[in-house]
């Protein structure tokens, strides 16, 4: 086994990897930028190496410096985490060339799954369904023929497009001609190209993904699904395992699992990876893309299967065989994860970096917290504002939701805005509780939610606290001292210290 592993990442995922390395008796080497000198991953690691200035391009994305650090500290392997260089085939290849083990798939597999068309081809090679469509420009006649084959609704998209320009949903043949004309002319204006292609429109799709895990000897299993339909700006914010849909239709797990394994094997894949699917309202699933790395939301899979994915990633990278067969994998209970961000959910999810002045964390039965923050730490503005991943496990989904709500209630972060209160509203929502999830959920939630009024009795308490805090800052001599002591509070404080 490796004696030392370098983690080419930061934040909660670096801390997560350090924890498993420590449990395996492997030395953990952190890297850091200027902004991260006092970040938890640096403090927790056995060794640490400075990479460069705060911008990622000058630090966490510098392949040369990361490999220099690996050499200097004697790292035998590199764990890339997620984000940054984790899906960069060039980085994986550079590790291979440098004789440092890249903890992940081969650079060839990353490349094979890296492009949308390559991934689609591998999925189709493996027999996994993809969203029907054409990648090239068509005529309105061809669009009509496509719809006759695949049924309405369909989606017309600009070949040169992006950002919704030149895009039209078509729900019946009578609308097709006009929609095609509008889309083409909008595309012409926006992109100077009127070329239009067509895709089957999946309405209110669910995002359900399959965790796969394979060794370097061609053995591969799946560890079931995660549902990640609760998204804002295409970013997952709540994930769960099992998917409430799959839990109700258990044949889906095997079908999707097998499709995922076939797609991954078609790309010569090994180590941990995730195959993402869209699922339509008739429970048909379509290959979306493959993430060739550990997923942010991997804890929910760990909670229901009892495996340590990071440990297995490292063992597989070291040449171990898969320690279990598909039949030995069992799922227990239900797990939900909330991504705690430094952001203001009621102000367009704007990031809220700053100094954390107060921090109480949830604990107790069924709670797992993967974080990277501490009281006094300043959330840097240069990186993703993910503070922690809060996961709750319980025997049933209802109990896991209740447990998550309990934990969110225990979670208190002061000094910055977070989305903790927003999750409490989502998890209280009837549609969420009923498991009726889809990727447009949050948008609809904002449309239907009633502004939450604070319980009436709380205003008196808030007023009392504000008044006492105001008075505690006053002293006859002038401004309050830095501890906020005042004659009003001194007696009580002494009593407390007795």
């Amino acid at each position, binding site marked *: 086994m490796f004696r030392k592993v370098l983690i080419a990442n930061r934040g909660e995922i670096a801390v997560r990897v350090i924890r498993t390395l420590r449990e395996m008796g492997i030395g953990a080497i952190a890297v850091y930028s200027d902004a991260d000198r006092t970040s938890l991953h640096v403090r927790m690691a056995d060794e640490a190496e400075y990479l460069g200035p705060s911008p990622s391009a000058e630090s966490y994305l510098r392949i040369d410096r990361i490999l220099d650090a690996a050499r200097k500290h004697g790292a035998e392997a590199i764990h890339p985490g997620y984000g940054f260089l984790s899906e960069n085939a060039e980085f994986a290849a550079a590790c291979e060339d440098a004789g440092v083990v890249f903890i992940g798939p081969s650079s060839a597999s990353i490349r094979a799954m890296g492009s949308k068309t390559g991934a689609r081809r591998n999925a189709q090679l493996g027999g996994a369904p993809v969203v029907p469509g054409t990648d090239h420009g068509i005529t309105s006649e061809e669009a009509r023929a496509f719809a006759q084959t695949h049924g309405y609704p369909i989606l017309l998209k600009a070949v040169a497009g992006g950002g919704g320009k030149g895009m039209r949903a078509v729900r019946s043949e009578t609308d097709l001609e006009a929609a095609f004309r509008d889309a083409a002319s909008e595309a012409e204006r926006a992109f100077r190209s009127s070329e239009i292609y067509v895709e089957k429109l999946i309405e209110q799709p669910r995002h359900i993904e399959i965790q796969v895990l394979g060794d370097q000897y061609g053995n591969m299993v799946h560890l079931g699904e995660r549902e990640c339909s609760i998204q804002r700006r295409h970013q997952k914010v709540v994930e769960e395992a099992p998917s409430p849909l799959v839990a109700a239709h258990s044949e889906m797990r095997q079908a999707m699992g097998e499709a995922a394994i076939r797609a991954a094997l078609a790309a010569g894949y090994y180590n941990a990876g995730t195959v993402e699917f869209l699922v339509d309202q008739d429970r048909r699933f379509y290959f979306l893309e493959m993430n060739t790395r550990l997923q942010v939301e991997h804890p929910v899979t760990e909670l229901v299967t009892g495996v340590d994915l990071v440990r297995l990633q490292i063992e597989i990278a070291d040449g171990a065989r898969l320690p279990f067969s598909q039949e030995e994998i069992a799922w227990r209970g239900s797990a939900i994860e909330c991504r705690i961000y430094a952001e203001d959910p009621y102000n367009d*999810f*704007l*990031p*809220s*970096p*700053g100094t954390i*002045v*107060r921090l*109480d964390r949830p604990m107790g039965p069924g709670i797992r917290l993967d974080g990277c923050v501490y009281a006094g730490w300043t959330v840097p*503005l*240069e*990186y*993703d*504002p993910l503070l922690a991943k809060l996961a709750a496990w319980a025997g049933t989904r209802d109990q896991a939701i209740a447990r998550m709500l309990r934990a*969110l*209630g225990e979670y*208190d972060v*002061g*000094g910055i805005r977070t989305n*903790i*209160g927003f999750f*409490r509203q989502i998890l209280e929502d009837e549609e969420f509780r009923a498991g009726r999830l889809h990727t447009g959920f949050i948008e609809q939630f904002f449309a239907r939610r009633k502004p*939450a009024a*604070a*319980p009436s*009795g*709380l*205003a*008196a*308490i*808030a*007023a*009392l*606290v*504000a*008044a*006492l*805090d*105001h*008075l505690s*800052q006053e002293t006859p001599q002038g401004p309050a001292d830095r*501890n*906020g002591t005042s004659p*009003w*509070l001194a*007696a*009580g*404080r002494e*009593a*407390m210290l007795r």
Partner: protein
Amino acid sequence: MKLQLTINGAEEEIEILAPHPNCRFRWNGTEQEASVELPEPGVYSILHEGRSYDAGVERTARGLVVLIDGNRFEITVRDPRRWSRHAAGHAGSGLETLSALMPGKVVRVLISVGDTVAAGQGVLVVEAMKMQNEMKAPRAGRVVAVHAREGMTVAAGEVLATIE
């Protein structure tokens, strides 16, 4: 002593009759009691009418933020005894500085010196974590200074403009 409060926009009055830990206060015309302790910095533990509350307090430039069981109260306190002394403070009239809420890069400046702005009007756009944040005027007034320039990197708390 009596204090005038603005709680999430509503005007209220509270009178503190006895301080912590065995607090007496008047609220909505009735005298009430509460056991008040400070178990952690910035945290008040309140027992009131048999119920237990843990309240977090933060002091911000605009006043106090009190968080109780996920409910957020933005509160400004005015102390009538001190009205004359504090009249020039930032809770009442006078100059209002507009500080960067987060570190980032100024990508747009929408005001100039001499402009009249309405409360809530967008005045500056700052970018951080690849997200753009439009800063709004905290109240109506006249712009007396603009320190921000487009392209400038600003630190959290840095004064970007001043409104009179």
